[in-house]
C-alpha cells in the first residue's frame, strides 16, 4: 500500500507530464504570429530605411534585420503575383529602390483598398535588402 504522500507526488508528476505534453504540442503546432497583435520596435519612413540600406547594407541589417518595424510612405506600386501574394511598394520616383511590403494572407483583402499615391503606415518584419528593402507578413495600419 502506497503512502498518501507518494500518491500525491505521483498525481502531481502526472499532471506535470500532461501539462508539459500540452505545452510541447501547442508549441510544435504554433503558427507564425499575426503582426497586427505585435508591437513594432522602430518607426521609420520609407526614404530613411531605403537610404540606410543603399549606403551600408551590413549596418542597416544590424538595425532592422528580423525586427518588426513600422514604415510610413507613399504607395508607389501594387503587385499581385498569380493571386498567391500581394505586395505594396512604398517609395517615390526619385529612387528606383522601394520598400517592398508582402502583405500577410489574412490582411490582403483589407490592403487592396489603398490606391497608388496614398500615404500609409505598414507594420512588417524586415527580411533584408535585394533591389528593394523587403518587409514580410505585413499589415497596413489604419
Amino acid at each position, binding site marked *: 500500500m502506497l503512502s498518501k504522500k507518494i500518491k500525491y507526488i505521483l498525481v502531481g508528476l502526472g499532471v506535470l507530464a500532461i501539462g508539459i505534453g500540452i505545452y510541447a504540442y501547442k508549441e*510544435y503546432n*504554433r503558427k507564425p504570429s499575426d503582426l497586427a497583435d505585435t508591437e513594432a520596435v522602430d518607426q521609420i519612413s520609407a526614404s530613411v530605411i531605403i537610404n540606410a540600406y543603399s549606403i551600408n547594407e551590413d549596418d542597416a541589417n544590424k538595425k532592422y*534585420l*528580423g525586427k518588426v518595424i513600422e514604415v510610413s510612405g507613399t504607395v508607389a506600386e501594387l503587385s499581385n503575383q*498569380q493571386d498567391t*501574394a500581394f505586395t505594396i511598394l512604398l517609395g517615390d520616383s526619385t529612387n528606383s529602390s522601394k520598400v517592398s511590403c*508582402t502583405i500577410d494572407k489574412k490582411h490582403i483583402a483589407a490592403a487592396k483598398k489603398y490606391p497608388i499615391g496614398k500615404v500609409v503606415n505598414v507594420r512588417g518584419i524586415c527580411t533584408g535588402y535585394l533591389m528593394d528593402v523587403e518587409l*514580410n507578413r505585413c499589415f497596413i495600419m489604419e
Partner: protein
Amino acid sequence: MTIKILLTFLLTSLSFLGNAQSFYTKNGNISFYSKTSIEKIEAVNKKALAVIDFTKNKIEFSVLIKGFEFEKALMQEHFNEDYLESDKYPKTVFKGTFSEPVVGFNMNENKTLTLKVNGSLTLHGITKAVSTIAILQVKNNIITALSNFKILLSDYNIKVPAVVGNNISKEIEIKVNTAALQQMK
C-alpha cells in the same frame, strides 16, 4: 566634343542592345523540401530576385533567408536562428551560366528551352558548385524559369542537432518556379 557625343551615343545604344536580352523578376518563387519517414518540411520564398541575361549567358538568383515561410513558427525560428544563422548570413545567391549560349532569344515566340546550367550556390557562408537543368518556357510573352536540384546540408556546414536528426533530411530538394520575368529597361 563630337567624339564625346558619338561615344556616348555608341555606348548608350550598345547597352540598349545588351539589355534587350535581359530579363528579371523580383517575385521569384523558391521552395525547399525535406522528407523523412517522420516529418515532411517545406518552406517557400516568393520574393527571389532573378536575372537572366542571354547576352552574357548568365542566370542569377538572390534570395533572403528570412523570407522563407514555414507553416509552423517553431520550424521557421530554428531554421533562422540555429541552422542557417540568418542574422550572420542573410542571403543566398546562385550564379550560373548556360552551358550553351542561347542565340536569338525571342519573347514573341512560344517555346520551351531545356538548358544545362553550371554555377555556384552560396549558402550559410559557403560556396559550392551546383549543376542543374533549367527549363525556360515562353508563353504569350511571359517567361517562366523552372529548375529542381538537391543539396546536402553537410556541404554547407548546416548542423542539425541529433535530437531532431531523424526529422530532417540530410539532402534538401530545392525547387525554382519563377514566372513573369520582365524585360529589363
